């Protein structure tokens, strides 16, 4: 079956549906548009559809292809009726088959919206009073659907600036409290291409501060929902959803493929990951974070002597030590304001609006509305995230301290050499046959009578995982990246 076609004859949805059958698909969604008996207060008797077929078929095929790619669905098709239609007849049919229902619904919705909006199809309505009239296709209305005149009127924007936004691409990492206003404003302003990276799903506790999402979105991937909403909001936008966390494996290529990066996550690990990637790629970036009623905003520009995130925070604490929204609490307008400021900063950078952003940090207090710009110098000792000894030491700090195993054999199979730091009297109580590997009692290590092996991937075990954790922490602080503590200790094996 063709992915998009016109039909003079009445549509047979049963046949179309069968043509999409696919054993790999567990979900099928379909939309049918029917001829209704009224429009804008007038009684309608019948309809005529006319299309510029050659152009419409090509554009229709593009829409279906985009839906397949964007939502990862396997099969999709659309058939539009032309000619004379009576009340109740089927005017347009869309069908989508996908492994799961979410993608099927989303792709179906996308196809019908795009078809209605983009295809040169005209409708003539015949009214009960004998009158008739052409109803413009949505694309062909006189006023452009998205009118940027109010921002083009600004001397700093103008037609040239608008064209610049249209040809710009922005990577938005994190589609939460900060990301939502960033996405909404950039999409509305006519930024041509936006990629949304977020590995989370919409949760009920997000809704109070992330008003792009609705109760019905709970459980769906944020990136996908946001891309749907933005695409519907501005048809000029090319929006891509990446429903995974930004990580070391994907961040480099994503950053390289965009003109600017907006970092909108709620964790320091990702912020530093993005910092290192933008510094390496020489791409401008806007960072923001919030804590209760306060926010911090920072721009990074690929200019000589511009301070990066690591210049400011050479020894950033683990995420657990700085509050997040779940623990510290947050009112919606706080990320809303900081995200809006990020969007403003992004547009200033894209449009080259003077003055240049602050080299350093802007600190905002939303209880007093005090805003403070604190300038920072580039730190000559900072490696700006480049690979090297500092990065290795940071990795050692950042790696999880504890790992969990069901048995000691599992730990050995994972490549660990065991070091048992319990005292001799504790070992005597072990069940026969339990082999905990090298025995270095903690008291002997602390007393300096024994020393910890200088290398190797070591898993430290004790009775309950408390002593092993503090020893692991101590070793990590002294630069040992390859030591771990077994969570729960020997007790966790016997339970």
């Amino acid at each position, binding site marked *: 079956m063709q992915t998009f076609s016109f039909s003079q004859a009445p549509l047979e949805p049963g046949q179309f549906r069968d043509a999409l059958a696919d054993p790999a698909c567990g979900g099928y969604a379909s939309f049918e548009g029917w001829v209704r008996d009224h429009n804008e207060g007038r009684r309608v008797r019948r309809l005529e559809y006319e299309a510029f077929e050659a152009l419409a078929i090509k554009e229709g095929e593009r829409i279906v292809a985009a839906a397949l790619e964007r939502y990862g669905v396997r099969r999709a098709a659309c058939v539009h009726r032309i000619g004379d239609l009576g009340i109740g007849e089927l005017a347009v049919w869309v069908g989508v088959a996908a492994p799961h229902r979410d993608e099927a619904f989303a792709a179906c919705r996308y196809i019908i919206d795009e078809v209605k909006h983009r295809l040169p199809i005209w409708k003539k309505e015949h009214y009960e009073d004998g009158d008739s009239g052409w109803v413009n296709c949505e694309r062909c209305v006189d006023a452009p659907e998205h009118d940027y005149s109010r921002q083009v009127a600004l001397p700093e924007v103008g037609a040239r600036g608008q064209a610049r936004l249209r040809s710009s691409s922005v990577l938005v990492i*994190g589609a*939460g*409290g*900060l*990301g939502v206003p960033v996405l909404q404003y950039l999409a509305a302003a006519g930024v041509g291409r936006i990629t949304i990276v977020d590995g989370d799903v919409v949760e009920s506790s997000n809704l109070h501060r992330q008003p792009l999402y609705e109760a019905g979105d709970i459980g769906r991937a944020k990136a996908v929902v946001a891309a749907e909403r933005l695409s519907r909001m501005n048809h000029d936008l090319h929006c891509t959803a990446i429903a995974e966390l930004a990580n070391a494996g994907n961040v480099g290529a994503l950053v390289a493929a965009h003109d600017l990066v907006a970092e*909108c*996550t*709620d*964790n*320091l690990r990702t*912020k530093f990951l993005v910092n290192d990637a933008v510094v390496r790629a020489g791409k401008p970036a806007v960072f*923001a*974070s*919030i*804590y*209760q009623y*306060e*926010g*911090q905003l920072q721009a990074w520009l690929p200019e000589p002597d511009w301070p990066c995130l690591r210049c*400011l*925070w050479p*020894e*950033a*604490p683990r*995420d657990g*030590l*700085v*509050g*997040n*929204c779940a623990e*510290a609490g*947050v009112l919606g307008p706080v*990320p809303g304001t900081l995200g809006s400021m990020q969007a403003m900063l992004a547009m200033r950078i894209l449009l080259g609006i003077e003055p240049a952003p602050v080299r*350093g*940090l802007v*600190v905002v*207090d939303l*209880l*007093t509305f005090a805003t*403070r*710009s*604190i*300038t*920072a*110098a580039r730190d000559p000792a900072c490696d700006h995230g480049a690979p090297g000894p500092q990065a290795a030491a940071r990795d050692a700090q950042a790696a999880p301290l504890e790992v969990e195993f069901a048995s000691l054999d599992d730990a050995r199979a994972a490549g660990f050499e065991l070091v048992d730091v319990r005292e001799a009297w504790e070992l005597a109580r072990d069940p026969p046959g339990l082999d905990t590997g090298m025995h270095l009692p903690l008291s002997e290590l602390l007393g300096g009578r024994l020393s910890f092996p200088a290398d190797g991937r070591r898993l430290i075990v004790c009775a309950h995982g408390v002593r092993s954790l503090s020893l692991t922490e101590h070793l990590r602080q002294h630069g040992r990246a390859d030591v771990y503590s077994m969570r729960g200790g020997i007790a966790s094996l016997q339970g």
Partner: protein
Amino acid sequence: MTLSIHVQYFAALREQAGRGSETLATGSRTAADLYEELRERRGLTLPRAMLKVAVNEEFTTWDRALTDGDRVVFIPPVAGG
């Protein structure tokens, strides 16, 4: 001689200090000494290495000498979003 210093706290430090700002008389001569003094007086837990200090709207080093009337800000990184 004691110096009169205006101190502002942000984020977790504001909570721990129980106030957003204060003007105090101190015998401390550097930003580092002042922070250590306040750690004790105000029960601040974050180690200095994790913070930034700014004097008169400019980030500075911890060995920065204080002068009478300086405005000192202690800022921890925040991560919420």
